[in-house]
């Protein structure tokens, strides 16, 4: 218990000594710090407050509403056509479908030639 108290006292002494020392600067450095502080503080005073005027909010909301309405009303422009690539894709699909039909017809013809299944394997 006394060991903990000594530790505590040591830490307090250490902190007090460090705090005293942390405030020590030469007059030259102190002057430069003062100058820096003045520049920084004056910058805050010179900067305008970046707040949006009250009247601008309803105007902004109205403008956004008009833009949205126009976008919905106009929609897609007239004469809209799919891209040529899509047309080409459709043609290819049609050819494939025709091939399937042809294969099916060939299969049916072959089946007819083979005759009815007599069940003898």
């Amino acid at each position, binding site marked *: 218990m006394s060991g903990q108290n000594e530790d505590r006292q*040591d*830490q307090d*002494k*250490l*902190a007090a*000594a*460090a*705090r*005293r*020392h*942390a*405030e*020590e*600067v*030469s*007059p*030259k*450095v*102190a002057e*430069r*710090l*003062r100058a*820096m*502080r*003045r*520049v*920084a*503080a004056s*910058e*805050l005073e010179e*900067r305008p*407050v970046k707040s949006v005027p009250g009247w601008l909010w309803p105007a902004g909301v109205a403008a956004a509403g008009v833009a949205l309405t126009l976008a919905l009303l106009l929609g897609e422009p007239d004469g809209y056509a799919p891209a040529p690539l899509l047309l080409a894709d459709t043609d290819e699909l049609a050819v494939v479908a025709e091939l399937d039909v042809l294969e099916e017809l060939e299969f049916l013809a072959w089946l007819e030639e083979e005759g009815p299944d007599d069940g003898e394997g």
Partner: protein
Amino acid sequence: MNTFLAEVEKRAFNMARFGVRDTEDALDIVQDTMLTLVRRYGRRPRAEWRPLFFRILQSRITDHHRRSTVRRKLFGWIPGGSRDSGTYDDDPVAEVMDPGVADPASRAALDGSAAAMEQAVTALPLRQQQAFLLRTVEGLSVEETAQAMNCSSGSVKTHLSRAHTTLRTKLEDHW
């Protein structure tokens, strides 16, 4: 803002000087910290300024260390190429503070124990030094210190405990 900066500027300067071991670099860091605080957080409530200020300061000190380490790695092979004001992790001799680095006027004003304190704090590894200065000297809470150092509260306690042990050992003759 002027009053707040006046309260912290000297401690901030010494914190930076302990960290970077160069008066001019320390002044640059403090100036940059002040301007960043004003420009980014000047309109925030006053109660938020202190933790923000020290967070920016620690970030600048850490950046300075990183740049110095990169410079040392890049130019270390050139004789004298690595001699800058950064840290010297692998050179124990360089861990001893150079008396010529600190401002002669301020050094003359220091008595023996203050000089020993300065030397002991400067020789601490950066993270231990930051934890000690922010928590013990500046009086930030563990959480605020952790925020400023960008680490966990547990790490702060570990760094702080190690710093206290080292400083007690080094400074016991001066008490």
